[in-house]
């Protein structure tokens, strides 16, 4: 193993929990030198884990090469290799992990397994300049309200069933909406919602600190099928109801923890209406509203690389024999010794 000073070096991060395969390169000081993302677009329907994994395997070499090129470094310059170890889809995670293991053992550098949710928070903090935020992380696979306390990111609230992004995606597909290349379904729904005017009553389900979207989704789809309302009004109502639910829980966490920052991240963070709502509660509680540019809010390799840096410089590495993927790895299981 190479021995290096901990204040200089490069970490490469591989993200492959779901439909995106991405490679990022970060310096130990927190500069992101590369963040190359290749998205798998299913011809129809949702993500088929095996199909997505096949895509990842096909593009891996190309994405790696592009990342090195963008960063202007060579593989031998790397100090550590990080990969998203979970939570996520099994076949996708395993593909990324295989690439990471191969690279680390070839280069004889340490391997770092990173929790995908921790990585979203860490890159958010880095890019938005937040120190100790309440985080609302909303994506296709996760809906979590978390904040740091006693060595870990604690989950204050989360979905009891499907994720917010998943709810929007499935609704969009049921409505027969089409996405343009590179455009997520959430963006299509957002565009239509802007033209909506009438609020259609839909179930609003907040249970304590947790939320549920499955009933809302079913009600929205049933309403759609009855054809009484315009699609614009339905998208508008779906967004308003679903977003109000997550924002209510975020506000509760903010009031409870009395933290000074709110960080909005994940794929759904790109939604302007959601940003506006989260910003509003931040103002009300005298907290700073932080959000991250799209490429760092969605699934990306840079966040894995940067969290890899944090973990590696605090002695968190793993032998390849123990680097199995963890499909259901919860955020609060992870110790984060780099946060004080």
């Amino acid at each position, binding site marked *: 193993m190479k021995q290096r000073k901990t204040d200089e070096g490069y970490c490469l991060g591989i993200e492959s929990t779901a439909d995106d395969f991405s490679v990022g390169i970060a310096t130990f000081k927190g500069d992101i030198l590369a963040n190359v993302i290749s998205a798998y677009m299913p011809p129809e329907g949702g993500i088929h884990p095996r199909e997505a994994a096949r895509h990842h395997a096909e593009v891996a070499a190309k994405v790696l090469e592009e990342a090195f090129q963008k960063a202007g470094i060579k593989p031998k310059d790397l100090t550590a290799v990080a990969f998203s170890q979970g939570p996520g889809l099994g076949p996708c995670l395993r593909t990324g992990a295989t690439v990471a293991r191969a690279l680390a053992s070839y280069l004889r550098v340490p391997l770092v397994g990173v929790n995908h949710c921790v990585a979203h928070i860490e890159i958010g903090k880095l890019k938005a300049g937040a120190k100790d935020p309440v985080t609302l992380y909303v994506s296709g696979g996760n809906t979590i309200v978390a904040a740091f306390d006693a060595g870990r990111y*604690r989950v204050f609230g989360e979905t*009891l069933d499907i994720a917010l992004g998943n709810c929007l995606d499935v609704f969009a597909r049921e409505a027969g909406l089409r996405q343009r290349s590179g455009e997520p379904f959430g963006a299509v729904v957002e565009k239509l919602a802007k033209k909506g005017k009438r609020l259609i009553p839909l179930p609003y389900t907040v*249970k304590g600190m947790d939320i549920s979207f499955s009933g809302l989704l079913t009600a929205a789809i049933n309403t759609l099928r009855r054809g009484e309302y315009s699609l614009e009004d339905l998208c508008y109502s779906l967004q308003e109801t679903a977003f*109000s639910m997550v924002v209510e829980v975020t*506000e509760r966490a903010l009031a409870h923890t009395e933290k000074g920052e709110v960080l909005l991240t994940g794929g759904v963070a790109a939604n302007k209406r959601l940003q506006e709502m989260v910003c509003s509660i931040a103002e009300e509680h005298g907290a700073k509203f932080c959000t991250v540019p799209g490429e760092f809010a969605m699934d990306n390799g840079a966040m894995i690389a940067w969290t890899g840096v944090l973990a590696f410089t605090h002695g968190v590495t793993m032998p390849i024999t123990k680097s199995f993927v963890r499909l259901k790895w919860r955020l609060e299981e992870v110790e984060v010794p780099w946060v004080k």
Partner: protein
Amino acid sequence: MGEISQPKLIKRGAEACLFLAEWHGRKVVLKRRLPKKYRLPVLDEEIRTYRTIHEPRLMHEAKRAGVPTPTIFLVDVKNSTIVMEYIEGKQLKQLLNQVSEGDRQNLCRKIGELIGKLHMHGIVHGDLTTSNMIQNGDGKIFFVDFGLGEKTRELEAIGVDLHLMKRALQSTHYKFAEEYFKNVIEGYSSVLDAETVRNVLDKIREIEKRGRYVAERRSMQI
């Protein structure tokens, strides 16, 4: 509401503001649900009105079920304000960290008993946390904040209710969460029949197995 004098803000919660005031010579708490700017006005008003009417109703029913709750004096739907008795005492959230192990066990068992009584009478609290429980000078434990509660005998809702209690213990008393929850269940089992308890516990396990609570499944045995 003209008789109310000098409301003083005592807690600015996420959902409502609590004011301490005097009303006909009594100390009262005003719970006012303020409009939320982030929500559409139509949706906002609907949610606030619903909760303002619903909460006192549930609190009253809880009392009938044998669970102490603050007495409701007045409900002002137009201003989404509830006027209720002020309970002088300590939140269980703090109390649990201050008392001896034996007292802690008793408190948790008592909490469990009270939750059991609620469920037995078809009331689900909806936000069971140790900050929503107050012990007064006589040692009586009051449940407050029924804003997210509902009347239901559905096993799913009851399971989620207790599951939330467990999650709340984990996020605020993570060091002793396991032990606390075990005691809560002991108390709970003492008021409900064995079959119901078994069904509820099975339900909690099922909720946890839905994929999002695997760590709990591994770390906690109930």
